């Protein structure tokens, strides 16, 4: 399946900004099942963009601008060709052994309730890790409601779980916290999701998790949709949690209040595929 993505992030500042620096994890890498046909990241204004790579192998750009800026815009446009691999990720860049992804982070630290929930999912009598992960995915998807209202970017897994509500980021954090509590390496994936209901304009990118299954390698689990990633999931960056894989992170000097506007279009491009 061929997917076209146009993602514009624009900041408007009350007062001119003196300096901005941002790390953009907005460029996907190819792996089996994901081929990048075209991809470009552009900034407007006098900002400088230098490409690089982080420790986990994510492609990143460091955006830096100095002077007096009233606004700043980052535009991402790309087309990718996706194949359904049933969630199994092969041929991706792996810089570390999988056990690195057992590390807990502040955002994914479980509390007692979450631990109990994970243990309950694990006690359903299966010794097969893949089946266990699917139980867990199902349980989280059933237990928690997708709701953009109550949580924000810094909500932890335990907080979101107590509310039983959250966005894809929160559901993914809950999944990661549960996996790591059970001793299964798991990591956060940020990316784009082509919706099945024909809605093209979206409010935000998507997030899901990958857990390590010895016989298969890394396998994706999308807790917000209750499925393993399909050819509608464009995988962009991985991290221990949201902060490690966040599309945009940055700091600035001056500028007063900022207004952020995001425009994101994800649509299927015309393409005949060969059987």
């Amino acid at each position, binding site marked *: 399946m061929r997917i076209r993505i146009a993602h514009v992030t624009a900041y408007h500042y009350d007062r001119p900004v003196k300096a901005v620096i941002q790390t953009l994890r907005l460029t996907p*890498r*190819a*792996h*089996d099942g994901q*081929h990048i*046909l075209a991809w470009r990241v552009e900034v407007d204004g006098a900002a400088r963009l230098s490409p690089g790579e982080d420790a986990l*192998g994510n492609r990143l750009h460091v955006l830096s601008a100095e002077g007096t800026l009233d606004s700043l815009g980052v535009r991402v446009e790309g087309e990718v*060709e996706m*194949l359904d691999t049933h969630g199994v990720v092969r*041929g*991706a*860049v792996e810089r570390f052994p999988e056990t690195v992804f057992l590390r807990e982070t502040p955002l994914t630290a479980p509390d007692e309730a979450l631990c109990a929930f994970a243990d309950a999912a694990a006690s359903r009598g299966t010794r097969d890790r893949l089946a266990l992960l699917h139980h867990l995915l199902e349980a989280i998807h059933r237990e928690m409601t997708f709701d953009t209202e109550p949580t924000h970017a810094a909500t932890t897994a335990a907080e979101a779980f107590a509310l039983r509500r959250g966005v894809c980021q929160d559901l993914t954090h809950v999944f990661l916290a549960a996996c790591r509590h059970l001793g299964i390496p798991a990591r956060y994936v940020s990316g784009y999701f082509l919706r099945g209901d024909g809605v093209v304009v979206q409010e935000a990118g998507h997030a899901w998790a990958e857990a390590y299954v010895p016989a298969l390698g890394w396998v994706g689990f999308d807790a917000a949709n209750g499925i393993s990633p399909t050819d509608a999931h464009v995988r962009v960056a991985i991290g221990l949690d949201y902060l490690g894989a966040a599309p945009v992170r940055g700091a600035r000097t001056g500028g007063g209040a900022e207004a952020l506007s995001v425009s994101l279009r994800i649509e299927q491009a015309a*393409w*005949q*595929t*060969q059987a």
Partner: protein
Amino acid sequence: MLSRTADHLFWTARYLERADFLARILDATTRLTALPASYGRPGNEWESAVASSGCAAGFYALYDGANEYTVRDFLAFSPTNPSSIRNCLSVARNNARAVRTALTIEMWEAINDAWLELRRFDAKAMDREEFARFLEWVKAVSLAFEGSSHRTMLRNDAYWFTRLGTAIERADNTARILDVKYHVLLPATEQVGGSLDYFQWTTILREVSALTAYHWVYRESVKPWLVADLLILNRQMPRSLTSCYETLVRHLDLIAEAYGMRGASQRVASTTLARLTGTRMEDVFQSGLHEFISGFIADNNRLGVTIAEQYLMP
């Protein structure tokens, strides 16, 4: 476009690239053997020239041992070696003639003139100097062909298949040189940096005409892991494996775009490129240079077969 046409264009480009590569091996080996014997060369450079060319089995069936005369005869002129320079040029010309109308006048003349001129060279009577001139001439033929295709062809599927042939052969050739010489590139425990090693490394660079490029990129003395980096991962180096695969992926994408469908070739090429761009040199050395190169040669052959199945077979 008929698959037959695509097939002939692909193989014309491949054979000319191979002729160029053989000329480079012979040239570099002649240089290496001109070094004084006191450098204590282990092994025989002519044997490694045969191994790099990938036709060792055919060679030892015909000759007892590898020396300047047998190897030169076999790789440059032998009618029984399907990959000798002479055979490469005439097979390339036969392929080109079959699709004469798909080529531009300049391309056809470059290859037909070469074929006519080939008869002028008398293999038996050739001394070292004349042989060196012959090798220069072979390199000039591929330059003329590739240059004229670049300057005169329409950018359509005919051009793209020509580029695929060149890039896949080039990747194979670079990988073969690395495979034969990988032991001199390994971080060894003894005698690293001796004069012998230095000449071996510069020979590898000369074989792919990358000696000057090396100094531009790294600006330091020749070091084995940097030689490997240049020829495997460096995107700026047109003969590096990564660069060849960028060319393959780009032109396969253009073909898929024009024909409105993607297939196995695009997937195989994209997977290999993703692996090359995601790899760092320390990972290659850690998991074994030889294993990495052998794996690459197998993948590259698989891509050749896949392209043939998808596009070149009627």
